[in-house]
């Protein structure tokens, strides 16, 4: 599903129509900023001296006031609408930036899931609050965020009930959005060849975006499926450290139990004798068993990897 887009066009013979444009600001650089009348979601930038047009904003918010779902037909209608308002054929404009993602229904709290998505090799991880995480690269970035919270905070009641009636939204459920932000889409998706807006409607291109989203998601290093014990007694400070250590073992390609055992071995006999070491080993083994036993814990199931859910959702989207 397409969301935010930035469209750039060199207006050769086109005469930009200002009838639907509301002036917002002018800059010394020659750029003039407008909004499409009545819609702050869609910004129009025009530079008369070099005859450049830039249209940016979220197409789903512009067209339907939400981004819970946005199908091909709506995409086509929204571009046609802006084209006819500006009297410019935007289908042949360049797609200079865009976001492609999907909202999936998840069982656990998005915040909890996001916490377990750690990093992508070669990308910087940013997280200003627990319900959002961005893996930032130079050509593209991948963002995970709590879409359910966005719906509750951003959308008015009328839109929320429309989502419930027409799109199967349930405010009691959890929703997570996974989206690719393409800063240089021509590099990320098209071997350096520029992408036109019309490409968004070509099935092969759409499939390419889906595959790239899945592959980027797969690249995220996720923590192990750690199950937090329910009883307070099992959650001593030492055990919490053990939990955190076990959780990150796959990220560093180590075996937590082996590392602990070799650490115990390294401790001199004068400090911990054989019996002390055996007792501690037993305690640690018991704890490790506890955090991998679904019957004794809060979280169960297939862990934090959402690949299968995302793949299934993308297959259903057109």
């Amino acid at each position, binding site marked *: 599903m397409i969301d935010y887009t930035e469209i*750039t*066009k*060199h207006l*050769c*013979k*086109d*005469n930009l129509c200002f009838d639907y444009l509301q002036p917002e600001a002018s800059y010394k650089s020659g750029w003039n900023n407008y909004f499409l009348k009545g819609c702050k979601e869609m910004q129009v930038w025009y530079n008369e001296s070099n005859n450049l047009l830039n249209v940016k904003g979220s197409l789903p918010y512009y067209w339907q006031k939400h981004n819970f779902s946005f199908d091909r037909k709506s995409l*086509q209608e929204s*571009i*046609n609408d802006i084209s*006819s308002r500006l*009297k*410019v*054929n935007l*289908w*042949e*404009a*360049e797609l200079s930036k865009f976001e492609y993602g999907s909202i999936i229904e998840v069982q656990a709290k998005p915040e909890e899931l996001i916490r377990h998505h750690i990093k992508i090799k070669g990308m910087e991880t940013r997280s200003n609050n627990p319900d959002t995480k961005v893996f930032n690269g130079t050509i593209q970035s991948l963002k995970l965020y709590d879409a359910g919270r966005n719906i509750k905070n951003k959308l008015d009641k009328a839109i929320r009930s429309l989502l419930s009636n027409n799109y199967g939204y349930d405010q009691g459920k959890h929703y997570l959005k996974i989206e690719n932000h393409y800063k240089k889409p021509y590099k990320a998706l098209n071997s350096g*060849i*520029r992408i*036109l*807006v*019309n490409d968004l*409607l*070509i*099935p092969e291109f759409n499939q390419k975006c889906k595959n790239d989203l899945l592959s980027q998601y797969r690249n995220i290093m996720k923590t192990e499926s750690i199950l937090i014990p329910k009883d307070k007694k099992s959650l001593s400070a030492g055990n919490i450290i053990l939990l955190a250590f076990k959780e990150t073992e796959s990220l560093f390609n180590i075996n937590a139990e082996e590392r602990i055992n070799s650490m115990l071995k390294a401790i001199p006999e004068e400090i911990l004798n054989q019996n002390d070491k055996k007792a501690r080993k037993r305690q640690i083994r018991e704890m490790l068993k506890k955090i991998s036993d679904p019957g004794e814990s809060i979280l169960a199931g297939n862990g934090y990897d959402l690949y299968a859910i995302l793949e299934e959702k993308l297959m259903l989207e057109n």
Partner: protein
Amino acid sequence: MNAEFLKSNHLQFMYELKQGTKTSYYLTAGARGILPARIGVNRLPFAPIHQTGRGHLEKQTGQIKATFKKNDESIYKKHKPGWIHTSVYEIPDFPVFVGYGDIGISNEKGKTEGTGDLLILHSSDEWKTVSIHIFRGLLFQKDQVFPYLYKLLKQQSPA
């Protein structure tokens, strides 16, 4: 069907809107003796979807009408009254084009008959100029022609 084959069957014409009119266009570029120098192009932005003779649902987006002059010579001028009528239909994957159609010409009975030549109509400047692309005999291979022409447009347009 390779790109060279498509290229050799591709004819391109540019028409410019006559000032003071809404539908009358004059030829400004392209080979002479194929299409009339003046054509009428109607835009049908809100035409209803209807069942066409091709047996599937298509949305009509435009219409081209023209008549050859008495002294004109053309491969499309075979019988009186010597007209060209083409209905233009939406191409769902390529809205960048106005649409496509089968070039219809007048037959011996004076009725319009399809030639099987594929016409693709395009305008990038809000109908001040229109370009007409003809692919001779390739109406039924249109699904291979559309991506070819789109690729060509991508290479040519400044964006």
